């Protein structure tokens, strides 16, 4: 089984599905000869030709709208937006059309499409390249929003996203693109899009995260284990629709919960998880639900991005607060 980075796994999922299904196309800026700015589409042009590997003009609204048009015709469009900060021009098309054609036409026209984009910071990229967009999209009805946290999940979830009959926003944590490898076999098997993954089982506290922050969250769980604290780690993976059942079950067991996310704290998806706990988990909680999130500031340029992005220290500090209030 080949050992792949996440970006290679993303590439493999697209190539694999394009081999399987001739009606899958990829489109975006510089995805052809250049293979995409992060090389996610490397080799696809050579294998599938310029008709199915579509270099678009420099216009993100168009890219989203074209994917909509293609998908209404049954062509499965997998669009790439180069950097997360340039996803915003797609918002109108996604919320006003992609998520609505099915409903609007009572099922007559549908949008089985994926918009992939790098997400979050940590790679010292220029301005507007490091934002975390998941909540902006996850608030939209009719959408699926997915963010993988490892090469294997990237492969399986992207396959699922491409096959899904409804629009999916697929946010790939830039920071994890090449951070570590995993054995990934091209089985063509998709992962489910409607459940959280229990990344590791535990009994004392539930740590919930997704995307890039899963990495630091796992490190925290390691640290806690050294101290004899058993953390259950939940990878939300599919943010919308949100599988609260898995999280509630875990919290019912541990009685403690810290949610870790990189996007700005106010109105972030961590708040959605916490709100559900405040409603459905209140009686099983021993301690307040803590959110560790990006600050409510503009994403700083590279020199200060580490100030902004939660890290092991910040997560640990909130975990300690929880155990201070409700000791093990």
């Amino acid at each position: 089984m080949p050992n792949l980075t996440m970006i290679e796994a993303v590439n493999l999922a697209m190539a694999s599905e394009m081999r399987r299904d001739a009606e899958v196309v990829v489109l975006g800026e510089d995805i052809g000869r250049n293979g995409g700015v992060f090389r996610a589409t490397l080799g696809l042009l050579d294998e599938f030709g310029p008709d199915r590997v579509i270099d678009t003009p420099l216009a993100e609204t168009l890219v989203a709208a074209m994917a909509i048009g293609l998908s209404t015709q049954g062509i499965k469009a997998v669009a790439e937006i180069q950097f997360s900060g340039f996803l915003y021009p797609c918002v109108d098309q996604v919320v006003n059309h992609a998520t609505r054609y099915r409903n609007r036409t009572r099922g007559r026209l549908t949008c089985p499409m994926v918009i992939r984009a790098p997400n979050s910071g940590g790679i010292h990229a220029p301005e507007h390249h490091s934002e975390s967009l998941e909540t902006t999209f996850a608030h939209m009805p009719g959408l699926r929003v997915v963010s993988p946290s490892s090469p294997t999940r990237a492969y399986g979830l992207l396959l699922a996203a491409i096959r899904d009959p409804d629009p999916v926003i697929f946010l790939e944590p830039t920071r994890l693109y090449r951070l570590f490898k995993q054995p990934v076999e091209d089985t063509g098997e998709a992962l489910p899009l409607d459940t959280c993954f229990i990344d590791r089982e535990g009994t004392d506290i539930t740590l919930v995260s997704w995307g890039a922050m899963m990495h630091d969250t796992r490190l925290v769980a390691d640290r806690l284990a050294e101290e004899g604290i058993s953390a259950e780690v939940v990878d939300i993976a599919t943010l919308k629709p949100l599988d609260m059942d898995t999280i509630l079950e875990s919290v019912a067991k541990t009685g403690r919960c810290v949610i870790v996310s990189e996007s700005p704290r106010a109105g972030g998806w961590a708040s959605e998880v916490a709100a559900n706990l405040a409603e459905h988990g209140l009686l099983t909680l021993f301690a307040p639900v803590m959110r560790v999130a990006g600050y409510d500031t503009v994403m700083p340029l590279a020199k200060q991005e580490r100030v902004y992005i939660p890290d092991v220290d910040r997560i640990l500090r909130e975990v300690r607060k929880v155990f201070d209030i409700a000791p093990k």
Partner: protein
Amino acid sequence: MVEPLTIPDTSPGSATTKVASYDIYLTRFLNPDGTLAAEPPAFATDREQARALYELMVRTRLFDKKAVALQRTGQLGTYAAVLGQEAIGVAIGHALKAEDVFIPAYREYAAQFARGVPMVRILQYWGGDERGMDYPAGTPSHHDFPLSVPIATHIPHAIGVAYAMKLRGEKRVVLASCGDGATSKGDWYEAVSAAKVWNLPIVFLVNNNGWAISMPSHRQTGAQTFAQKGLAGGISGEQVDGNDVIATRFVLERAIERARNGEGPSLVEALTYRLHDHTTADDARRYRPEQEVTDAWDRCPVKRYKAYLEARGFWTAADEDALIADGTAIAESTAQEFLKTAPQAPEAIFEHLYERLPKSLEWQRDEVAARGPVGGH
């Protein structure tokens, strides 16, 4: 208004070279009084074909009148009338083939009727019922797009649709239409620009009806014509008298066939006039002179074309009476059918949200279902 670029005297002549030149043309066969400006094309000299255009125009006008009446009596929501612009929809309806895809704005009812949308659907839509966009299987409209209320944002969908046709080697064409105001939106431009990049089989139609709500078209843009906006994407643009159903059909058919033959996209600006308020929620007297409207009635497409048909001996007073009677009856029975539309179940709001409702949303649907109908409308 735009001035063709001229290099001022200060510039030494030899420093400049002309690199490109463009001309914009207008086509018209029928003068406003119905007399001929030029010999009409074949379809307009064939009695049956020529009559069909007129009939659809008048039936649409009668439908439109009924819809406005329903709104005025509180039986319909906000409605966007097509009064004065019927010729364009008729031309579209006759110029497109069944297998083509129509991506309309929100006033081209005639084209939609021609393509098989039952009149009652339009009333249901403006009446606030999603089922009004469920166009019937077995008709060309079944693969058409629904009315688009957000201005211009539907136009780039044409790129994807046309690309799909090209990818599959189909000889089909997309017609995407909008108003003059819509051409100010970036979405519109991104589509026009991209269409030529892939030489896609698309006809962009601009209904220049003189106004975008209260904004006259000459204040919407500094361009002398809307047709020339195609030049920004390297697309041929032309004007047509949109109140001349013959010219409009002729120009559209030509552009559509060019597209079908692989000659790429075109842009057609159809010059017309919105005789009604913008919608029933609008009061145009606030911002436009009554005289302008009165004058525009002289250029009305229905009157004009009727004069042509009569002059050709294709239309009689008896034909007219029969058509009005039938069209009125149909509008009336459509209204009755609309008013009897059974309400949707409340939980229908979840029915087509996703192909399959995610488990996590089931409780919401069940809550709605358990609650039953809610007062309101």
